């Protein structure tokens, strides 16, 4: 197991490196640059600024310096757009926010989704099943950029219960809507996957054996059926986890939460090379780690899997 983890982390190093190099070149090949604007700067000024950020150097030299600073100083460089702020600051400010409402969304989506799916499967073809399936499909059809406005219209403008945006250090009234908006569609998918997986498991031979042994229904469900049911759910949860952890640009825009999602998209639009690369690397590292965690989780759900 330990050897497996070490091996996976070793493989992660070239993966991340490849990610950096590919993103770096893609970014520079995109037309425009951080200092192109509608009113072009005088050439002398532009050359001056570019020289300050090292953009006049050949590409390979820029890449080398970038990597060197990361490895030696853990410095992802200054932002090209916001003066006096560097990438480390921007991530340190935005990521905790995204992390907070993201992990809460993940928790909500998983618990509600799995419970809904299990209830539907146990009461197959009953009103509970139909209700759960209906809810699941409705939720799946509501991505966060649709849920956002709906929630604000209902709870802020109409009922006046919740503040329409802001973060305020993550107090719960400010958290509720972003969390629900982000969680809803994932919850729908999780419910659907859980339901079909549970139905399949309930039809399997070992469940028949458990019943033939005279075990009470709740033992059959919780002890025998649950773990195998969750196996396909876990493989879906991995990517979802990365996605919600890094926040969502729509949630950040609708609810002015100030998370990383907005900074990410903003940096791509304004060619803020340093911020864009920094956040991409963060996403890359998270993906690698979560994938590893998912694979380790498999071993807990299925004893046949051993590392």
């Amino acid at each position, binding site marked *: 197991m330990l050897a497996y983890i070490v091996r996976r982390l070793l493989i992660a190093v070239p993966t991340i490196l490849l990610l950096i190099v590919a993103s770096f070149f893609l970014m520079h090949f995109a037309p425009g640059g951080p200092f192109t604007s509608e009113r072009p700067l005088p050439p002398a000024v532009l050359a001056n600024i570019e020289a300050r950020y090292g953009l006049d150097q050949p590409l390979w030299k820029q890449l080398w310096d970038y990597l060197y600073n990361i490895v030696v100083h853990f410095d992802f460089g200054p932002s090209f757009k916001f003066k006096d702020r560097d990438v480390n600051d921007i991530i340190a400010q935005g990521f905790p926010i995204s992390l907070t409402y993201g992990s809460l969304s993940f928790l909500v989506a998983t618990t509600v989704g799995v419970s809904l799916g299990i209830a539907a499967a146990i009461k197959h073809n009953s009103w509970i099943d139909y209700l759960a399936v209906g809810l699941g499909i409705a939720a799946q059809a509501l991505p966060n950029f649709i849920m956002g406005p709906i929630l604000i219209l209902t709870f802020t403008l109409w009922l006046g219960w919740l503040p329409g945006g802001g973060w305020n250090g993550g107090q719960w009234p400010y958290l509720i809507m972003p969390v629900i908006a982000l969680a809803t569609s994932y919850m729908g998918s999780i419910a659907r996957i859980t339901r079909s997986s549970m139905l399949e498991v309930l039809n399997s031979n*070992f469940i028949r054996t458990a019943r033939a042994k005279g075990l009470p229904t709740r033992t059959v469900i919780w002890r025998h059926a649950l773990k195998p049911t969750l196996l396909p759910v876990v493989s879906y949860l991995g990517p979802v986890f990365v996605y919600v952890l890094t926040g969502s640009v729509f949630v950040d825009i609708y609810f002015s939460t100030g998370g990383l999602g907005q900074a990410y998209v903003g940096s791509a639009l304004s060619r803020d090379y340093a911020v864009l690369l920094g956040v991409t690397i963060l996403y890359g590292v998270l993906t690698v780690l979560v994938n590893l965690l998912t694979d380790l989780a498999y071993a807990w759900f299925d004893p046949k899997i051993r590392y």
Partner: protein
Amino acid sequence: MSLFSIKDLSVQFNTADGVVEAVKGISFDINPGECLGIVGESGSGKSQTFMAAMGLLPPAGLATGSALLNGQEILNLPVNKLNQIRGDDVGMIFQDPLTALTPHLRIGQQMREVLQVHEGLQGSAARARCLEWLERVRIPEAKRRLDQYPHELSGGMRQRVMIAMSMLCNPKLLIADEPTTALDVTVQADILDLMVRLQKDEGTAIALITHDMGVVARMCDRVQVMRLGQFVEAGETREIFRAPKHDYTKTLLAAMPRIDAGDAPKALEKVDEPLLKVDDVKVHFPIHVSGGLFGHKVPLKAVDGVSFDIRKGETLGVVGESGCGKSTLARAVLQLIEPSAGNVSWLGHPIVGLRRAELNKYRKDLQIVFQDPLASLDPRMTISASIAEPLKTYRPDLTERERKKLVAEMMERVGLKANMINRYPHELSGGQNQRVGIARAMINKPKLIICDEAVSALDVSIQAQIVELLRELQQEFGLSMIFISHDLSVVRAVSNRIMVLYLGRIVELGDGEVICSDPIHPYTKSLISAVPIPDPDVERSRTRLKLPGELPSPMDPKAALRFLPSRLAAGENDYVPQLSEVKPNHFVAEHDPLEAIMAKA
């Protein structure tokens, strides 16, 4: 008073196509301590009868009538009442031991929960009882098994665990639903022996649901023959075998191939050039094993140096237990997987390592019929399209009309009705689909057909028809066949010569009748003696040669020398047993005397 009594039991299923009546008002009794056989083919309702009685029907199923256990009505009881009976008064074991145990719970956990629920027994007392039963079903290293997961045990061991688990609370009735169908023949014999002993020692009545007349002959006191949801005949086992009254019972008995029938096809005269020559073929798969930072690979020797040849019109039977490399050998011969070493030549031309285009020229003459008829046909192609497909490859000159004519002729030849041309595989029965598979293989008039477990998934009566069809086709087209099966009785019925494989190597090769009636190698002897014979008198008076130990894993380096303990003792773990011709055309692998092998136990 009878222990278990079924009266007018009917089972219906509500399906999308309307109500299907699976069991149509049957009645029978089981007396304390007896073994009742319920015999029938797939779809006869034999399993559903007992599932209904135990409340294990799927939600769409509806049971009516009466099921009395010790005079108490149990049919359609609420689940909490049924749960007091299931696992306590009535134990159940099922067909497929590989999927019947919960994969993520340890053997001990799964056994203990039975005691917990029914007797409130916990902790070390429960553990002791589980251990006691594992030892009674003769599981080697019983103590270690308690903490193992099901996938760490072999199929035979898992079925023993199932039996031990269902016997924990000393049930009065054990329902065994095809308990040995998925098992190898020697493992089957072990499990049956075990059940006989339990019936005797514990006085447990057994309801044995099976399609295999040989198993019935060995086990049952009385038999109920079931067909299409009804009983067609019932009586004492000996009576039924001696003088079956109903036509269906007669067909069933006649369809069962017998290993002791003594009418295996004769060996062919030696003719000049063999059609196919297989020379020292090896197939090794690299298997990843953990250890160290990056693990390493060890070869799994699926086929390890097999040589044989086949003459025109000859049938070579290939037998062996699971993991012996039968199917891998077939695929290597056809170059569906490339052999790691060795040579295969067709009419003198080597075909190993050819490029795809060159190989395709030979493929016309070399065809294969697979085990699972439904899965081996493209579900989105009509059966006539499947049959016609090889014609498009090898006879591109044919017009659409000519092709249709050839397909229609071939369909008629294999016994498929002309109006079936536009059917899809899922609309046909298993037997019909296998006829499609044969028609597809035969359409280009090949010279050699490999039947890889081609009749194993079929009911006995259908199996007999397909075997007959293959024989006729062989006569008609002068076809050669490699007939691979785990079922020795069927192989004997069709093969001129039989080759016995053990862990990727030949242990014995000779004329069919000689192998079955006068085997020399201890492994062959144990295989033959384990095959059940559908005749109660013969079957019960036979003695079995039981070799020590479980069926070994191909990954076990010492398993290859199971029959040469002297070499193992000498530390020659890599020794390869040599094949020698003990009598004309009868090859046997080197082995120690039987006593030395038996002494190892």
